[in-house]
C-alpha cells in the first residue's frame, strides 16, 4: 500500500491534469474498458475477458473509442482512467494502470508537445515541484549523443542500444521525436520518419504521441502486417476494429497523446516502484 502522503500527492496531480484539460476546453470522455478489439501493435498484449462468445478484451488504451468520438465531431477530448496490458511486469508495470489521453483537432504533434509541456508544469506544481527545462531531441540525435553512434540498421540491435546506452541517460524531461517509419503505430509518416514523439524523464518512458494517421487503407495495411507477424510468432492476431478504420478516414487532422499517470507521479515523487503510487488490485 502506498504511503498516505503518496496517495495525497497522486490525487493532487490527477486533479491538476483534469483541471488543466478542462481549462483548455477539452471534454472528458469515459472510454469503454470492455472492448471487442483492443490493440493494433505487434508487441502489445491485451487481457481477454471470459464472458463467452463473442470474445471481449480489456482495452490497452482508450485510443480506439477516442478516435470514434473525434469522428463524431468533438474537437478537443480527453480520457483519464484504467488501462490493462498483459505480459508487462516489474517495478514500472502493473497489469492495471492509469493513463490519460488527449486529442486536439487542427494541430500536429508539435501542438501536442506544447500541451504536454504546459500540462507537466501544472502537474509538477500540484506535487510541489517546478518543471525543469524540457529538452527536445530527435531519435537520431538521442542515439548519437548518448551512445556515440547512429542507430544500428537492425531494429533489434538498435533497440538493445537504446535500452542499454540511451534511455537511462534521458534524465531531464526530454521529448524524443521522429521515430523510424517502421515504428509508426498510428502516426502519420513524413519522408522516412513517423511524426511521433515520446516523453522520457528520469530515464522512464512517460508518454507517446502522434500526428494522427488519416489514411484508413494505410491503417488497415499496418494492422494486417502486424497480425501476420504475430501469427508467424505463434501469437493470436488482434481483431481488426472496422469502426475505428472508418473513423480514421473521417476524423479531422489532429494530434494525440497517451501519458502514464502512475509513472508521472513516480517521477514527481522520486520513487521507483509503481506499487508505491497506486493501490494494488
Amino acid at each position, binding site marked *: 500500500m502506498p504511503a498516505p502522503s503518496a496517495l495525497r500527492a497522486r490525487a493532487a496531480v490527477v486533479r491538476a491534469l483534469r483541471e488543466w484539460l478542462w481549462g483548455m476546453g477539452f471534454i472528458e470522455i469515459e472510454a469503454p474498458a470492455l472492448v471487442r478489439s483492443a490493440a493494433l501493435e505487434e*508487441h502489445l498484449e491485451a487481457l481477454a475477458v471470459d464472458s463467452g462468445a463473442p470474445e471481449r478484451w480489456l482495452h490497452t488504451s482508450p485510443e480506439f473509442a477516442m478516435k470514434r468520438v473525434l469522428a463524431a465531431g468533438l474537437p478537443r477530448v480527453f480520457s483519464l482512467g484504467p488501462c490493462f496490458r498483459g505480459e*508487462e511486469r*516489474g517495478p514500472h508495470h502493473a497489469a492495471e494502470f492509469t493513463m490519460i489521453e488527449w486529442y486536439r483537432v487542427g494541430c500536429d504533434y508539435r501542438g501536442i508537445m506544447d500541451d504536454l509541456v504546459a500540462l507537466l508544469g501544472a502537474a509538477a506544481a500540484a506535487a510541489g515541484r517546478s518543471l525543469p527545462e524540457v529538452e527536445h531531441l530527435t531519435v537520431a540525435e538521442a542515439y548519437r549523443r548518448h551512445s556515440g553512434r547512429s542507430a544500428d540498421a537492425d531494429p533489434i540491435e538498435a533497440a538493445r542500444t537504446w535500452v542499454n546506452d540511451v534511455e537511462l541517460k534521458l534524465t531531464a524531461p526530454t521529448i524524443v521525436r521522429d521515430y523510424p517509419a517502421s515504428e509508426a503505430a498510428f502516426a502519420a509518416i513524413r519522408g522516412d520518419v513517423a511524426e511521433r514523439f515520446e516523453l522520457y524523464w528520469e530515464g522512464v*518512458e512517460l508518454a507517446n504521441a502522434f500526428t494522427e494517421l488519416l489514411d484508413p487503407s494505410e491503417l488497415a495495411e499496418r494492422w494486417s502486417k502486424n497480425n501476420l507477424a504475430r501469427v508467424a510468432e505463434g501469437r493470436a492476431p488482434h481483431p481488426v476494429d472496422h469502426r475505428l478504420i472508418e473513423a480514421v478516414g473521417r476524423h479531422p487532422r489532429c494530434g494525440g497523446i497517451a501519458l502514464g499517470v502512475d509513472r508521472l507521479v513516480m517521477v514527481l515523487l522520486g520513487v521507483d516502484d509503481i506499487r508505491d503510487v497506486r493501490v494494488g488490485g
Partner: protein
Amino acid sequence: MGSNYQTSEFRNGLKVLVDGNPYVMTYFQFVKPGKGTAFTRTKLKNLITGNVIERTYRTGESLEAADCEDRNMQYLYHDGEQYQFMDLETFEQLGMAPDMMDGGESFLTEELQVMITMFNSRPVGMTLPNFVEDTIDYTEPGVRGNTAQGATKPATLTCGATVQVPLFIEQGEAIRVDTRTKSYVGRVKE
C-alpha cells in the same frame, strides 16, 4: 541440470549461470523501447565474489539456472574466522566466511535457523528469517517530550546488529526487526 529461465520467469532471487558463474538476480525491469520488441534489464550479483553486473535480455532469450541448493541450517558459534552452522537434515557441520554473508552475520544468535545456499558443494549465501527478535543491548535514553514524527536513534542489539529505532524505545526492551531492510518493526509484546 540444463533448465532455463525465460525472461517472463525473471524475478528477484533467481539463481542463474552467466559465463559459468553463479549469480542471483537482484533487480529486473521490463522495457519496451519504441513500439518494438521487449527487453528485460537486470542486475545480477555474483554469488561468490559479490560483484554486480548489468545485463539486458530480449524477450525469448533465456538464462541457464544455476544448480544451487538451499539448505536449512542452525547457527552454532563463531570460531574467530568462520561462522559455524549445522545442517538440520544431515547434522553435518559447515563453516562459512563472513564475506559471503552480506552483513547478515550481525543478526546471528545461537540456534537461529537460516537458509544456506550451496553451489558446487560450497556455501555461497545465507538467508536470514525475514523477522528476528532480540533485546536492545544499548541505546541512548529517549528525550522526554520529543514527539517529532518519525525521529529515530541507533540501538545496538545483543546479537551485535545496529538498527534505527523510535525515540521511545528503551535499553533492555525486546524488539522485532525486518532483516531484509534491517529496520525496526515493533516491540515484542510480553
